[in-house]
């Protein structure tokens, strides 16, 4: 039996609103576990607080009540053993691809660093672009740099906050395929936030489906589909439709889902 990598326990968050004294509840009693080596996606409606959840789990934002344990230890701040991949522009624009990927390798010798950069540049398909600056790359390539930077630091867990959200459709599909290939090689635990249900079903072992704000997990869906996933298999479509329905959406455009 695998150990839980991340345990979220009775997590609630309330933010101070714009008007004085107003309190806005964002997350309400979220509890869940992510197992070691597991790929978990969090889906929910836009603005429901799923990014807030990830920011708390990563240690960037404190919880109001409840806590997050990683390997049994409460999270109080970000840690290099758990690297966060941002939606966009997370790479440093003043560093080249090579320097960005080396950023998390400060303890290593030059030789080790060069070897790791070579390995991960190749893994994300950026060989030949090492000396370029992010502004010279496309959005998809910049996300590849960020994923390589995260992997090179050799974390136990990778948190991804809609990492492909700003990319075009075809690039997104390609990035998903590559991410799964990388995950199968590297065997990291991945917690991946997205508003794209299809993306979640294509990627995840399990999916946490969130409600509207104040958000909680309304259901955890097991995606028991073999990889590589066939996007028109009945099982894939059934899982996808189940989540669409959980989120109160109809698949037929123009039809009201709320009775």
């Amino acid at each position, binding site marked *: 039996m695998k150990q839980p990598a991340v345990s979220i326990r009775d997590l609630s968050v309330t933010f101070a609103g714009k008007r004085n004294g107003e309190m806005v509840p964002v997350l309400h009693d979220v509890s869940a576990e992510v197992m070691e080596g597991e790929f978990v996606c969090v889906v929910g409606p836009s603005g429901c607080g799923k990014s807030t959840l990830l920011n708390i789990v990563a240690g960037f934002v404190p919880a109001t009540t409840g806590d997050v344990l990683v390997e049994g230890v409460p999270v109080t*701040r*970000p840690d290099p053993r758990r*690297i966060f991949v*941002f939606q966009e522009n997370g790479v440093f624009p003043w560093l080249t691809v090579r320097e960005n990927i080396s950023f998390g390798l*400060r303890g290593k010798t030059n030789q080790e660093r060069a070897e790791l950069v070579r390995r991960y540049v190749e893994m994300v*398909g950026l060989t030949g672009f090492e000396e370029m600056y992010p502004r010279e790359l496309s959005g998809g390539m910049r996300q590849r740099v960020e994923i390589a930077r995260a992997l090179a630091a050799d974390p136990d867990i990778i948190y991804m906050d809609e990492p492909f959200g700003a990319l075009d459709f075809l690039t997104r599909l390609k990035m998903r395929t590559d991410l799964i290939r990388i995950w199968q090689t590297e065997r990291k635990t991945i917690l991946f936030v997205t508003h794209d249900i299809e993306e979640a079903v294509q990627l995840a072992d399990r999916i946490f489906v969130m409600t509207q704000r104040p958000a909680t997990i309304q259901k955890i869906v097991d995606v028991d589909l073999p990889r590589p996933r066939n996007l028109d298999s009945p099982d894939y479509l059934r899982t996808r439709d189940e989540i669409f329905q959980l989120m109160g959406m109809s698949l037929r455009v123009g039809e009201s889902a709320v009775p």
Partner: protein
Amino acid sequence: MKVLSSPMLGNQTNSAPIDVSPQPVIAASARKSAPWLRNPDSRLWKIVRPVGMVALFLTAWGLAVRLSHSALFPTPGNVVRGIAELIEKGLLLKYIIASLFRVSWGFTLAVVIGVPLGLVLGWYSRAFQAFNPLIQIFRPISPIAWIPVAILWFGVSDAAPIFLIFLASVFPITVSAIAAVQNMQLVYLRAAQNFGLSTGELFRQVIFRACLPQIITGIRIALGVAWLVVVAAEMIAVNSGLGYLIIDARNAGKRYDLVVAGMVMIGLIGLILDLLVRQLEKFDEVRWGYSR
């Protein structure tokens, strides 16, 4: 693995389409007669416009002086002869070096103190609370107003204008560095925290680098102000430099040709200084910060 969207893998084999249609005779001959003049964005026009404007200005100036029969105000020709006279006497180079020397010291001091101070105040909000009112009160006081104080403290020496130039440039530099840190993208900060940087590493590797484009803009503004102030300071606090040249030429014999010669040199050197600082914006490490 293939990269989907690569700027390097574009189609390099585009060739110009071959035009086989017969050219109309009239159009061809018209093109031959004036290809530069007909295109308003040609390189010729890009040079002709500013040069023409300067020539027009100089002509109008010369005419105005002649028509008004001014005994003192020089024509452009007088000014050129004035500059030649200053070169002959060896004064021009001496004064330019004196002015640049003072600006270099005052300005370097302002950068060395202003940039770190701005980064620290931008980062530590409690320090900012404490220092900000003081900065905002000192900032609007013109460096010219400090001239009597500078003479009191430093006497008639190089230290007085250097102090004034420092005062003039340290505020724009500090304020731009503070604003840069305060407006820094949260994502850079979080990425840095995530990789476990120490405070020193955070400042050197992330905060400073992220703020550098805006700091350079502040430095450009500050250098412009510093050059304005050195001239004013030299009129009162010292006995050399371009500012001294102007005031001395007027006092010792109403040599307005030399006054204007000094002004022209100030303008040209100011232009050159700005062009030099602009080169800083072209480095790869900061180019991302200037969106075009």
